[in-house]
């Protein structure tokens, strides 16, 4: 089984849209799906804007909470109950008996996601799709692949978006290291990094570095260090979402800026495929399917 996560840099960067596209791309395969947050609700919990629904086909698997399962239109058959609780009920594994929309509330910690992943290995699942939540990244340390969703909802400043994407891509490209390095467990703060200048260190994953607010400083510090990671997901591509909720007096409205230039620069400068899912779904499919077929 291969796992594939969609992580975003903020709310509304297009994670679920990407996820839906992936579901379509991989429709021939045996898929399990979950979210480390909350997916498939009608309206965004903060902006009140409509959200994309998650459509799931018959025969697929869904990992979601009991309460969420009740509100899904897909007919779900309970297979297994995990000892994982959320604010909205325990997490369970379901088989889809009849296609429909599904609300996803899955494991929200790395440890729980790993538990679910290990359980699914034993089932007949080929691809395990994991939707992200807000800007959360840490649970994806256990994913085999990731798609990075960036968008105007994070910022409408293109330079900022490019810099941020560059640093994330850079972290995801840190080499896998061995035990010959100095091990730094847990969260790696900038202070810690600066105290380790000049050393050869091993951190748990790129995610453990990316939790700082100051990406530029992180990039600078990394110039003075030899850092490797214990585990990491492989980045398949970057998606860009030009739509963003704009604050209005009475709430939010959907606004849009042109991100095609950003996409071109990400491809050219960072050497990673970058696409707008709404317009380039086929390209996304090619990239993902090719990779999965090769690995599988």
């Amino acid at each position, binding site marked *: 089984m291969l796992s594939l996560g969609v992580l975003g840099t903020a709310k509304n960067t297009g994670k679920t849209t990407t996820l839906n596209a992936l579901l379509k791309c991989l429709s021939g395969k045996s898929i399990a799906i979950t979210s480390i*947050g*909350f997916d498939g609700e009608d309206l965004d919990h*903060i902006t009140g804007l409509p959200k994309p629904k998650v459509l799931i086909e018959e025969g697929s698997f869904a990992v979601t909470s009991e309460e969420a399962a009740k509100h899904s239109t897909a007919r779900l058959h309970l297979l297994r109950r995990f000892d994982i609780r959320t604010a909205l009920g325990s997490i369970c594994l379901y088989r889809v008996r009849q296609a429909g929309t599904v609300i996803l509330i899955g494991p929200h910690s790395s440890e729980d996601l790993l538990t679910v992943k290990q359980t699914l290995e034993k089932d007949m699942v080929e691809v395990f799709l994991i939707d992200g939540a807000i800007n*959360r990244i840490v649970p994806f340390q256990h994913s085999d692949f990731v798609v990075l969703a960036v968008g105007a909802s994070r910022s409408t400043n293109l330079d900022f978006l490019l810099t941020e994407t560059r640093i994330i891509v850079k972290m995801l490209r840190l080499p896998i290291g061995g035990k010959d390095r100095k091990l730094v467990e847990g969260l790696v703060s900038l202070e810690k990094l600066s105290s380790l200048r000049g050393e050869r260190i091993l951190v*748990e994953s790129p995610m453990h570095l990316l939790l700082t607010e100051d990406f530029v400083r992180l990039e600078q510090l990394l110039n003075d260090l030899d850092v490797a990671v214990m585990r990491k997901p492989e980045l398949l591509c970057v998606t860009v979402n030009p739509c963003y909720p704009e604050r209005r007096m009475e709430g939010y409205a959907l606004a849009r800026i042109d991100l095609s230039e950003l996409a071109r620069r990400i491809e050219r400068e960072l050497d990673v495929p970058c696409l707008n899912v709404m317009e380039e779904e086929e390209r996304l499919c090619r990239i993902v399917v090719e990779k999965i077929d090769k690995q599988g």
Partner: protein
Amino acid sequence: MKFVLFPLDPVHDVALKMLNRELLKRGHQTILLPPDTKMEEVIEICQKEMPDFIMVSRTVGYGAAELLARFIDMLDAAGLRKKCKVVVGGKAITKELAAELGYDAGFGERTSWEEVIAYVEGGRFEREEITVKKTKKDITQGYTYEVRDSAFRELLDEISDQILAWAKDRTSLAIERTKIKEKMLEGEDLLEEYLKLCDEVVVSYFRKNVLPKKVRLITKEEKEKFERLVNRIDFNERILRHSLDKPLVFVQYGTGCPFMDAMHIKVSEAWGADGVLHFDPSWGARCEGLLEGLLAHEEDGSIITLENLKLIKSALNSSTLWCVRAHRGLNTPETVLLAARAGADLTKINMVYGSLNGGTDPERLTVDGVYALQLSARYKLPYDIPTNEELGGVPAHKAFAGMLVVAHLGVKLGARPILKPLFCYSPDVMINDYMKDNYVDYNVAKVLALRRIMDAPIWPGEPIGFMTHTEDRVQSAMTTALHAALASSLGLDAITIASTDEAYARGAITVSARIDTLRAVAEAFRFFGRARIEPTKKAEEYAENIVNGIYETLKKVAERQDFVAALYEGLFGTREEGANPGRAGRGTVRKC
């Protein structure tokens, strides 16, 4: 258990401070972090302390979600996520949002401490425990009606005995109708007998289906739709009183239409009213006989029929006290009967006010009033005694003398009266400058005076602050709220409050206007709590004068040895003072 409390906010940490206090009270160990602590620092503290719970507070707007999610990611990266439970609380937090952000639980802005404590301690939170369960209160409970001063007692006894002796062999159309109506309600077909005692308007309605002007029949369809709507109405009851169990708060209704009345009642109940008073149209008081059926009226006052009353009753919450006024017109005893049959809790009888300012002949209303008081006793329907003649210019002491006579008379007949002095800026007050400095002293004086004379419940109305309201909403709500605070400060049993449309006379009052005053009153109760409003020395002086004035009035009435004559002759208020003996029903009292 151990808690780390983390305000993820540059300034606000009040909610967490309060939670901290609650947790400490229950013997938990807490670490309350200051606002603006860096997230990295929090992670370090949590790694050292290994708390059972990390409680984060944050108002969620756009951007805050990312911050809250990043905090969870940091805990996850630090290996703490599964070792501690992480709870988020704040404005706009919901369970769904907590799930989306990866928190174990989330609590929104209207959460009670009990709910959070129950969650962290693993107990079950029973929402029932904190929902207010209102119960109906008997305003008259605990009062003896003892007349405290023997001099007053002798006078009141004398006057009451004279009234009872006088009324014993007298009857009226209203009393006879009431007797017939009682039998009709038992199923006897006595409509023709009944109609013989009614005015033409009522006779035409029954015989020729002619409706009075501006009155229409409510259809069956309307009634069914209304009932479906009312049955669906559900809300959390609330109590306006902050730390005291008095006063109960009443609102008046009488828009003319029972549907609109019911909606006004439901909204008033939802915003904390404890009781409602039914006001009928003024012409209903001047017409012999009552109509039947579900009737809507296009002008002020909702028509009294058993069907209308029952419709109102069906809309009332079980805890809501309901008063149907009967006090002033040609159908006083019959109204008490219908009120009792429809399930009312209270009625309103005052033949002094009703005959001097309500337009009914004093002789007629005295006979009817005595019978109505007997019904009030028989049906165990306490009655309040309004003294609105003050608004016409009658001095308080004269109005109070009349009220005390009606109260004492009722007690003798086995009924339970409630005294209703007005809290108002009356003509008498204006002329004599009693309120030159403040609105407090004279209103306090009224209460002091009544308490000195009789041990009875006191319910100022109707409504409090009469003649201090203007059409401005803020001023209107404010004056009502201050008068309510004064009533609370005096430990009074109930108040009737106006809407903020009290002074507006060109249209019906709105539900919004009701909500606004109820909110204002709740705020006044919250503000004062058990604190008292202190009157000046004047209050005592005024009280003394009122007590003396009442005594003098009662003395004159007793000496006159004829209550009805005393009414005609102005002993309870002269024509100059605005007391005009009414004409409706004059000459209709018969000996029996």
